């Protein structure tokens, strides 16, 4: 977990720490792990079985990664749509302009993935924003920052999983815009935090695996997501 910011880790209630955790409780997971290689094989098999049980299935290979991105863009778009529908009190003119722009960018991303995926696209996800206070500037911008930073780490962390250079390029076209959003929102909250703790000691943006990202995003997505067949190498 050393790549996650402390704040985000703390925000996550134990029961939402990921679709893997919900299947294989931590203690029993480690018990399996104690059985070394055999145990790992069992756990891996257990993960795969999930897809037959329940949840929106992202798929495998490049399609799986694209659906993963589509899921995140759905989440972001839904968030900003709600933000713009009724701005928090005291929103400045610039804040309204930027948040409206970002809403439209996320909608564009969402619809792009939907069309690009065609028949392979996952359905619309149901979101859960009950933990967000949309009347509070701190809550809205804090959540926006978390979503944007998470989005950057998600695209960066999944890039190497693509088999198609065309898809990788498309992800690259989007991730830099997410990074621009992240920096913009961060600057609204606090001057000169555009990099913040999102970079490592080499000033390289941190990245996260799909499992880490879905775990962090899990509390905002009511629909169960099955990422069991996403590529891992």
């Amino acid at each position, binding site marked *: 977990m050393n790549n996650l910011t402390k704040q985000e880790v703390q925000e996550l209630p134990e029961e939402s720490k990921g679709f893997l955790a919900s299947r294989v409780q931590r203690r029993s997971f480690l018990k399996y792990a104690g059985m070394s290689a055999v145990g790992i094989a069992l756990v891996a098999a257990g993960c795969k079985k999930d897809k037959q049980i329940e949840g929106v299935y992202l798929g495998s290979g490049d399609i799986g990664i694209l659906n993963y991105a589509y899921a995140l863009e759905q989440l972001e778009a839904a968030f900003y749509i709600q933000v713009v529908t009724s701005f928090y009190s005291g929103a400045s003119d610039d804040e309204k302009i930027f948040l409206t*722009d970002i809403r439209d*960018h996320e909608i564009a991303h969402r619809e*792009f993935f939907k069309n690009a995926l065609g028949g392979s696209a996952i359905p619309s996800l149901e979101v859960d924003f009950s933990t967000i206070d949309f009347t509070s500037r701190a809550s809205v911008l804090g959540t926006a920052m978390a979503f944007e930073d998470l989005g950057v780490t998600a695209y*960066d962390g999944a890039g190497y999983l693509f088999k198609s*250079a065309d898809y990788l390029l498309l992800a*690259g076209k989007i991730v830099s815009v*997410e990074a621009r959003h992240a920096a913009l929102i961060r*600057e609204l909250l606090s001057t000169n935090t*555009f990099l913040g703790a999102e970079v490592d000691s080499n*000033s390289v943006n941190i990245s996260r695996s799909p499992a880490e990202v879905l775990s962090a995003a899990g509390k905002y997505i009511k629909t169960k997501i099955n990422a069991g067949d996403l590529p891992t190498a």
Partner: protein
Amino acid sequence: MNFVNILEEIEKVDGDVYERLSPRRKAMKNFFSMGSKVAIAALPLALGSMFKKAYGQAVPQNIIDVLQYALTLEHFEYRFYERGSMLAPIPVGADNAAIQIIRDSEGKHVNFLKSVISSVGATPVAEKVVYDFTAGGTFPTVFTDYATFLAVAQVLEDTGVRAYKGRAGELLGQKVFLTAALGIHAVEARHAAKIRSMRRMNGHAPLLKSYITGGNDSGVPAANGNYGGSTPEGNVVQAGITITGINGQTISANTATEAFDEALTAAEVLALVAPFGVS
């Protein structure tokens, strides 16, 4: 749930877990977890060991070429901010601090890339003895006029983002190299957004936003090429899908351009930075 974390947990009960899984995995795990644990001085050694384990032997030349290209550009960016922070009339306070943060960030990219290139057995490209920050006289006041300095900074950052994007495909499937390159790419985008935000806030470009609107929105006519290219920033069609008004949504052409950044090829970038003495 972090895979590295999982492995660490397993390692407590099964010290040989890495070898059981794959002899390469421990190298990967070490690489990704060393960030805060290993001093910068030890990086080249750690990286070299990591790459040797991961590849068994030499890293392909085309990957080294991409790293050298990145270093070539980072050398120049670092010097731009290093000289700029000394010479340009940057207001003391938040603006000055911002430029120093970006300068230091570029400096870290330089050192990181040099370390990686050295660790794979290649010689990092040297920086130029002299750069022409006026780009052959196009920006004569780059270090004497703050507005010009920021405008040039914006163009350079946006170009840097496009440069990394343009070569990502050559690192396809390369977990270590591609992830690092994408990580720098995102940081360049954060720099670009900050510079743009500064230009807006201090009134140099009051309508400018942190993302690229329409095309060359820098107010610098000489930078048309930096926002042009074979796929210009004004592009509104992605993978054959028109983004403007997509699926009945009210997405304007400007929004469509903002939502997607575009790449530049290496040849395009090198031609654009040549007037600065970068090669």
